[in-house]
């Protein structure tokens, strides 16, 4: 699978161009590649036209505003919502009213906290542990 | 409309396609993966089945010589059967019956 690197500033223009060429947006995949030292996320845009496929790859740190390609592709609505909810990437134009209903206390379940592995990220429940009498 | 009218009239004289469950048991196919069973004496409590289980339904303790499966968590995939070195795991063709209480299937060696 070959991916084409692009910048997030060029993304919307490129999406329009691809739409003009007849490419169909198949999916948007966000992956968190953060390590202990840096926060890094990649967003892949998968396009298809008949039997050909193309993949655009955008890197982001997951904190700054992120462009939306909703104006070019109407079916990006759910996909961008999921991007925001699963990875916490603040996609432009996606307001508080979210399409995917997660439980309130779960925030961005696919986001990797720096220096914290997935396994230790269980939601901590305050246990009313009995304090042993002195 | 007429096709269905004909079918409806024909169905009146046909035997019914449904069964009187739970009084009549469900027929299951040959070699169906119904419920997980263990051929106890062969088991060496290696714990490979527990590691391969995608549903985390099997617990094995080598020290206590204890093997246990939660049939309601088991997804009947047979991953444990594939990895078992002693071939002591297998499937019954009959499905797990409806029950009022959940209980685990246990084996102590």
């Amino acid at each position, binding site marked *: *699978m070959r991916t084409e690197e692009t910048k997030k500033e060029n993304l919307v223009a490129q999406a329009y161009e691809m739409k003009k060429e007849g490419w*169909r*947006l*198949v*999916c948007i*995949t966000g*992956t968190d590649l953060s390590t202990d030292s840096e926060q890094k996320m990649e967003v*892949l845009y*998968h396009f*298809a036209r*008949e*039997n050909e*496929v193309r*993949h655009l790859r955008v890197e982001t740190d997951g904190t700054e505003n992120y462009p939306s390609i909703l104006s070019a*592709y*109407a*079916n990006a*609505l*759910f*996909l961008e919502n999921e991007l925001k909810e*699963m990875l916490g990437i603040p996609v432009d134009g996606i307001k508080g009213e*979210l*399409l*995917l*209903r*997660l439980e309130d206390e*779960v925030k961005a*379940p*696919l986001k990797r906290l720096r220096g914290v592995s*997935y396994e230790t990220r269980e939601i901590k429940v305050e246990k009313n542990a009995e304090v042993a009498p002195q | *409309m007429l*096709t*269905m009218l004909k*079918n*409806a009239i024909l169905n009146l004289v046909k035997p019914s*396609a449904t069964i009187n469950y739970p009084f009549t048991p469900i027929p*299951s*196919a*040959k*070699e*169906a*993966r119904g419920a997980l069973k263990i051929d106890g004496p062969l088991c060496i409590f290696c714990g490979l089945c527990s590691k*391969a289980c*995608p*549903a985390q339904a099997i617990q094995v303790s080598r020290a206590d010589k204890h093997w246990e499966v939660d049939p309601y968590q088991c*997804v*009947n*995939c*047979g*991953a444990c059967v*594939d990895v078992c070195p002693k071939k002591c795991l297998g*499937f019954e063709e009959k499905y797990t019956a409806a029950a009022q209480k959940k209980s685990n299937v246990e084996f102590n060696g």
Partner: protein
Amino acid sequence: MKTVIPFGPQHPVLPEPFHVKLHMEGETIEGLDLQVGYCHRGLERIFQTDYKKVTFLIERICGICSFLHTLGYVRAVEEIMELTVPRRALIIRTIMAELERIHSHLLIIGLYGDALGYENYFMQSWRDRELVMELLEYISGNRVNYAMNQVGGVRRDLDEDRVKAAHKAIDELEKRTGDISKVLLNDVSIKLRTQGIAKLSKEDAIALGTVGPVARASGVAYDVRNTGYLIYPELNFKPIWETAGDNYARMQVRIRELFESYRMVREALKLLETEGSGEIMLAIKPNQRPNGQAFVRTEAPRGECFHYVKANGTPDLERVRVRTPTYANIYALTKMLPGADLADLPVAVVTIDPCLSCTDR
């Protein structure tokens, strides 16, 4: 009079939860807001585990197209690991995939009858569907989640008895489907209710990125089986499409696809018989692990299903992304429904064949 009607998340016609807020003018729908995500199970997070276990877990995305999910996933992993799957395994996978399509289409054809208030027709198609369910159980050992695929091949072979049983079941099914299709295509009351209703134009179908029978009914002759995976090129597969784009056409596509599937299953079974027994599973060494990423498209019964797998050389996968057909199709409801009657809503919802447990994962 303007009213707002909540439709779902719990509603008798929906087996799965999604919410539609209908803005009504009398009995006519003026607009609708759509909300999904009520049964999110965080499966994509759970998939970040041993790639062998994921094969069984990914089936649990959906009960109806469970084989297609393993197929897509396994194809992606095989592409990463550069494995060449034995030919017999490919043929068996094709047979399973098509049997599953038959099962899924018969199911939705039945539900379509239910949405139309046509109970007898609903019961009849579900009775006939039982034949293919029994066949699938006989072949794979399970009725719903077949656990048939594994990275490198399939886990069960089709012996002579099973091939014979499959031939018999397909013959019977074809006969019975003929009966159902007569009703579905010619029944006056069904025609009155579905023709020309909830139309989706070709332009909208393309713009909204619809896939599968929904797109094909609107005149977009797009079927992923054309890209030539498994042994579809050998079976002379041709996509089936209609141009009307209404409720009737969407079901017409499905019933015609059934006959195409019967033909392909028969040909694949003949291939199995003529080529004789062979290997069905590649042996994978314990230290052989996927490293890399792959993107795979598979035609599920409901349309194009997409799987993306990213692995990093450890047994645990880094990311598995699934985009199911309903995800692409459900948004088309907002274009189809305005102007239709309230009575047409359940029918239109059923004709896009929504699978919300797929969508939410």
